[in-house]
């Protein structure tokens, strides 16, 4: 991927995004964009503002600036309306509907759909994540963290989004499970033409699967470019790659 602006407008275009929790400002005018079908990762340490960025985009926290999704402004829109516009958000902690079964979690994911392909889609995600199929009648809260992460992705995909926002899916997962989750994400991105905005601390894995990356430090974007470019960047290596 190259960094120069393409002729097509990006799927998501964020300009001067600013957010605060009470008197504490968290985001200081972020500019970022995600193209149709592009896999973008945002790296940053704890407290850099990654989670706030995603929550501002999906309507869970209020923010100023501009965010256009497929040409329509989404900032200040209620979360369920953002979901309807085609943005899925897998929040930190996976957002498991813990008292519902796996199948019911997926049914909630398809809540807005009126078409008759919901069951077929569900079976497709059961094929992608066989362990969910085994546990389809189990209460979601009783599953392992990795299984819940897979369920969260499948639930998000049940809404047939065009863009998925993922908040640190690796958190609390064993390295092997994290790798499996990232591989699935990469597959979905490639096969479904789904755009991905992933925020992560685990830069090694994230840069392997991403097309492009941003580095967020203390609420400001300090670096951006292709995944290869950032992998080669010395300060990124020091801070996130443990080189």
């Amino acid at each position, binding site marked *: 991927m190259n960094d120069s602006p393409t002729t097509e407008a990006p799927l998501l275009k964020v300009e001067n995004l600013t957010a605060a929790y009470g008197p504490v400002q968290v985001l200081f005018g972020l500019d970022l964009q995600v193209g149709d079908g592009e896999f973008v990762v945002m790296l940053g340490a704890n407290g850099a503002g990654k989670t706030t960025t995603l929550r501002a985009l999906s309507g869970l926290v209020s923010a100023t600036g501009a965010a256009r999704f497929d040409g329509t402004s989404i900032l200040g829109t209620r979360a369920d309306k953002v979901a309807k516009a085609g943005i899925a958000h897998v929040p930190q902690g996976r957002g498991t509907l813990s*008292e519902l079964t796996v199948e019911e979690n997926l049914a909630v994911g398809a809540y807005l759909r009126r078409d008759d392909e919901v069951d077929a889609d569900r079976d497709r995600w059961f094929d992608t994540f066989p362990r969910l199929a085994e546990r389809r009648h189990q209460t979601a809260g009783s599953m392992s*963290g990795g299984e819940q992460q897979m369920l969260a992705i499948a639930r998000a995909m049940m809404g047939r989004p065009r863009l998925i926002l993922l908040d640190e899916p690796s958190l609390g997962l064993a390295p092997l499970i994290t790798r499996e989750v990232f591989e699935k994400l990469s597959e979905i991105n490639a096969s479904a033409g789904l755009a991905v905005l992933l925020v992560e601390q685990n830069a090694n894995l994230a840069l392997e699967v991403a097309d492009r990356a941003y580095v967020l430090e203390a609420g400001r974007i300090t670096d951006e470019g292709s995944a290869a470019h950032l992998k080669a960047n010395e300060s990124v290596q020091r801070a996130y790659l443990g080189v």
Partner: protein
Amino acid sequence: MHLLAFDTEFFLQRIFAGFESGAVYAMLGLGLVIIYRSSGLLNFAQGEMAMFSTYLVWALVGGDGGGGMNVWLALVLVMIISFAGAAVIQAAVIRPLGDPHLNPLAVVIVTIGLYLTMHELPALFWDSANHQLTPLFGTGSIDIAGTAFTYRALGAVVLLLVEAAAFWAILRYTKLGLALRAVSTNSESASLSGVAVQRTLMLGWGLAVAIGVVAGVTTVGTQVFDPNFMLVVIIYAFAGVTLGGFDSPLGAVVGGLTVGLITETLPFYVDAIGGEFQLMPAFVLILVVLLVRPQGLFGRREVNRV
């Protein structure tokens, strides 16, 4: 005293009365459970809303002498009116307080305000004198082991079973039910899947209050009533859901019936509880359950692996 010769007929009478009262507690309990599960709070106005709905039925039927609408038709109509009315009340006074999970105390205080308001409404529209409602069921009875099980008591139990089954089916098989359960377990995650949380809560309120209409009409039965008739009943209903578990519809049914059976039998066999201390068993029950098994018989303790 019934210590010397155990009076089977009297005991069965008390048991049947226990089922009749318990059915009412259970129906009110179901309403409490819906609101607790979706919003995580107790609606203290649940009983008074049922009381006011009962007045609406009474007015439609044509007042004390009847002569107006058929009582069953009036019941169904008032359930619809109450559903809409409760939804409007939720949108007008509960919703502006925001997510009830974040601000539960404010919402509870508002439901207490609703309780007081509802309590005064019959006097405002009509009066607070004694009235009589055309009963849902005739005065006959069936004979069980030589004891009369009145149609009224039998009807209360049947109505409870019908409501519980309808409620269960709504939760399990409808989109509203799925949304209610999703909001109750994780409202943020539900909204990220496109569930309009506040609208779902509004419909939950409507459902809860509509269920309560039957409880109000059943409580009145063949007796005269005034605006105070729900004051004690709702406390027993609270005891019932505490026993059964605030988040469990099954618990509301079992808990409500159990409290009915206890309160209709115990005072007649334990002299110390009789008369002045009639409410004591309910209070002791609440206390013991909260100490021994805070989640109630059927309530779930949240299990969440990370």
